[in-house]
């Protein structure tokens, strides 16, 4: 399997889009490109499973390495393990759904779809990079389109939100870059695998870990650097919200795990209490803040802060189960929140409002969209049968294995968030899809074919993870086990 295909496909699609004439051609090409990506991701999964079944025990598969910039030891080095493949599948699904949802976007459509495709290329590149410099390069590729997508196609205070998001994420990138520089100067290489083998001096780790972790943490809505999330989401067009929450925030979680924690485990272990503290605050504080929101997009944005807290918590607890949970939560949250934003977008495009107080009884006229909304909500509150349950329970189970009293306390507080989540989800659903319907909504149409298709892709993912969690668990476990071996060494040395 030629892994570079994952970067070439979107790049190729983006270039063709530039030569397209008219909005119908553009969207057709974008859709075809995204379907090709999904097919490639599926093919990659098959190849990967075949290799593993054949007994291939390498840490990374399908590696490719070309010298890029010899003097600085920068390589174009890519490869995947189960964790990256899970992320790639997530990205591919969200991209297909996002493009389907934007099927009727005819304002500057060429630029719009171009940027979406570019963003997806950045994400794929990020997830397959094994060289820290290329990883950083792709991270930046994924940031810029967001600024434009919100600033041009957004709504509300879009300039303010776009600026805020771009500045905060750029700030995060700057911190990440300092962290990467630290690793580079300690090991003399940007190679991720090599760096993981050469044990960094603990003092250096303690200095550079906070930069890398906080930098990626900003992407993953780490408290108190989460404030770009609500404004950014609220102003973004539907597809951009889906990409932002479904893919972009995962770049942060993945970076925290793969770069910061994996390469600097000693420091991670020493700072674990801070990580856990911030994660717990994000979980509880995000949940209570969500409860007070009146705008559907703000509700989902704040709930993302709370849910991404589980990713950070799982990483901070630093054991096999909790890290598995963190990865599961990334996949689950990506699918779920994309579905949520899609449903909100569909409701908004019909009723022209996102204020909960003005909505009501939509189940009567749009059963399909309302059902999506309820499914996303139930997944969010961790109902068995959907992915959220699997991920959250794995995180809880892993966290509880940590016998420290304060960590237990943090775990109990995090568990308590499932009650608050139930409150805000049911309040939103009870008012939006249930209850009496305002007369002006009585003749609104239900979902169109493209919306249905988009939803089916995401719901299928959520249900598959929820009903057969062992599949995803088996996929990611070799990867997390390998990471735990490095991290475990650091912990037991203490």
């Amino acid at each position, binding site marked *: 399997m030629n892994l570079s295909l994952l970067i070439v496909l979107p790049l190729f699609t983006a270039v063709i889009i530039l030569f397209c004439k008219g909005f119908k051609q553009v969207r057709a090409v974008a859709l075809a490109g995204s379907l090709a990506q999904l097919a490639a991701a599926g093919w990659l999964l098959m190849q990967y499973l075949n290799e593993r079944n054949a007994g291939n025990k390498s840490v990374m598969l399908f590696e490719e390495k070309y010298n890029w910039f010899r003097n600085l030891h920068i390589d174009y080095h890519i490869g995947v393990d189960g964790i990256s493949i899970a992320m790639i599948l997530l990205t591919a699904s969200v991209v297909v759904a996002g493009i389907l949802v934007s099927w009727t976007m005819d304002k500057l459509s060429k630029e719009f779809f171009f940027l979406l495709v570019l963003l997806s290329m950045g994400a794929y590149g990020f997830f397959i990079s094994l060289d820290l410099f290329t990883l950083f390069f792709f991270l930046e590729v994924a940031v810029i389109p967001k600024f434009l997508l919100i600033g041009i196609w957004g709504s509300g205070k879009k300039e303010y939100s776009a600026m805020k998001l771009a500045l905060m994420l750029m700030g995060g990138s700057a911190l990440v870059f300092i962290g990467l520089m630290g690793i580079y100067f300690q090991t003399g290489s940007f190679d991720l695998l090599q760096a993981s083998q050469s044990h960094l001096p603990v003092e250096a780790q303690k200095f550079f870990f906070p930069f890398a972790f906080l930098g990626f943490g900003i992407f993953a809505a780490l408290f108190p650097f989460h404030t770009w999330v609500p404004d950014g989401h609220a102003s973004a067009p539907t597809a951009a919200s889906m990409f932002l929450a479904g893919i972009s925030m995962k770049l942060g979680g993945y970076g925290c795990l793969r770069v910061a924690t994996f390469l600097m485990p000693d420091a991670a272990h020493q700072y674990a209490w801070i990580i856990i503290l911030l994660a717990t605050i994000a979980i509880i504080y995000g949940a209570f803040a969500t409860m*007070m929101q009146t705008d559907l997009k703000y509700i989902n944005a704040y709930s993302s802060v709370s849910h991404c807290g589980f990713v950070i918590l799982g990483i901070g607890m630093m054991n096999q*189960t909790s890290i598995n949970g963190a990865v599961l939560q990334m996949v689950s949250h990506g699918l779920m929140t994309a579905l949520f934003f899609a449903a909100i977008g569909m409701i908004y495009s019909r009723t022209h409002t996102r204020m909960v107080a003005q909505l009501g009884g939509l189940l009567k006229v749009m059963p399909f969209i309302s059902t999506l909304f309820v499914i996303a909500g139930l997944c969010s509150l961790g109902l068995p049968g959907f992915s959220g349950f*699997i991920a959250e329970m794995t995180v809880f*189970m892993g966290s509880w294995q940590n016998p420290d009293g304060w960590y237990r306390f943090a775990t109990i507080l995090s568990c308590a968030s499932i009650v608050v989540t139930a409150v805000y989800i049911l309040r939103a659903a009870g008012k939006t899809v249930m*209850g009496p319907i305002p007369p002006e909504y009585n003749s609104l149409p239900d979902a169109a074919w493209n919306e249905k298709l988009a939803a089916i892709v995401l719901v299928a993912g959520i249900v598959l993870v929820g009903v057969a969690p062992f599949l995803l668990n088996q996929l990611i476990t070799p990867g997390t086990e390998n990471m735990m071996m490095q991290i475990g060494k650091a912990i037991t040395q203490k």
Partner: protein
Amino acid sequence: MANYSYIPWIPLLPLICFVVLGIFGRKHIGNASGIIGTLSLAVSAVLSLIAADQYFFVDGKLNGVYQKITAFKYVWLEFAPNLSIDISIVLDPVSVMMLVVVTFVSLMVHLFSLGYMKGEERFATYYAFLSLFTFSMLGLVMAGNLFQVYMFWELVGVSSFLLIGYYFEKPSAVAASKKAFIVTRFADLGFLIGILIMAFYGKTLDISTLIQKLTAVQSAEYTGMATAGFLGVSVLTWGLTLVFVGGAGKSAMFPLHIWLPDAMEGPTPVSALIHAATMVVAGVYLVARLFPVYSIDAAALTVVTWTGAFSALLAAVIACTQTDIKRVLAYSTMSQIGYMMFALGVARQGGEEGLGYMASMFHLFTHAFFKSLLFLGAGAVIHMVHSNEMKDMGGLRKQMPVTHFAFLVGCMAIAGVPLLSGFFSKEEILLAAWHSNKLVYGVALFTAALTAFYMFRLYFSIFWNKDAQAHHADKHGEGTMSMKLPLIILSILAIGAGYIPFSHFITSDGSVLETHTDIVFSVAPVVLSLLAIALAASLYRKQNDKPDKIAKAFGGLYKAASRKFYMDELYLFITKKILFPFVGQPIAWIDRNIVDGLMNGLASATASVSAVIKGLQSGKVQAYALYFFGGVAALAVLFIYLWK
């Protein structure tokens, strides 16, 4: 091992039904949905009966003791080695009994609903939800893994939510469904943490392994849990009590009962199935499942006992004052579940001491039949008069002969009138309480009298009291055959279920427990119940002003009871007046103003610094010249002083 490969089909059929009806029902299947749902459940019910026959009479016993048989097991989600959620199907006396109860009552409700829900716009959705509930409940009762119990526990919770909120355009139904879900979710938090504790110290999630490890003499796991403590209470007690909190939430035990009366907003057959016969006894079932562990921890059992006893009494007092017939039944359910709870609480594992366990399961079994009978009867009445209030009823015995007969049977059974099923199971509970704790016995006896009183108050108010009003005699009469048939079948069971020699099948240790009815012991409860029935007859058989006078005489107590002792108000106060304004709003404000303010402050500080720097680059040559000469001058001064 014998062939149990057909067992997975029992829960699978309703699941398939749910998926098919849920996706295609509304558009493509329509009115046939009811028939499809009912037929597939009938198959499940028959399979359950076959399983019960096979288990109890053919191959369940080994050396005279009923064994646990694992019919199916799959590692579903592995957290760590030995710590996994397994999807399993375990057959033991209790789970087989529950299998029969759930499929059978559900079948009756499916049948009844064919007539009751006829013409509803979302008829197919209704049957889809019923199937989902039945599937979840079956998964719950057959679970062999503690986390599996939790999973299906949540699923029955959501089915209950969906069905209570079935009339989604009615704000009161939406509010009730949210309340039911959130209150039980809060209780489930306890359950979840309880599971985490049990899993950590017991090092397994498998229920039988857990029991084995903890009950073994001086096992490492037991010593670990009994010696480790938190706030002066052993970890074992914490774990078991927290698990019980989850059970108390689902089973509507005080103070987590407030959702149950409101849950009556759902269609009445749903109340019969979920909020009377099956889901609400899940808490009792949970304690029974883990009973060997509970029985080694006296502190946890004391909590179970007094929660049960107090809830039984409280609910009975409230039930005497309610005027909505479904709410009376809801409180009576809570009261009867309280009976089952304290019966478990006073029992111990094995032998004669296990009487309470047997009695609790026996009462669970008989209660399922007579309570679903009462609810379906109430449904038939409501179907006729289009109201839940007693004042709109009266004198219905002539128009609804079948319902009248069925309801009378149900009332007699729950009141403990001799020779009906409730009598036998209640006697065993009273006996177990008598042998263990006289105070609990006293509470139970008084509650039994109250039960007889409020049930016959209900009965006389519906079927006697005043003459039937004119509009009752309307077109659709007593209901279709599909509504009458379940009433008749359930009446037969409400009478006959007590004659099953229950102690031969279901006991705490699986071996036979010889019980004998003690006539002398039965005198007190029976006489008290009959007196209470006579009192109810004198007050409510004919319309008169005595009930009002008595209510006035009790004054404040009556008012407090009719307002359910202000529990709802208390909860509302805590959430609306404390949690929202003092936790939620400050956090939301802090986030927008302080945390975000800080970030914006950072940005604007950067911006103003850059504005200053930008000002320097004005593009004016004179200004640059000025800076230049100023700089030179400053450097010159600096050099001159430094060189000295």
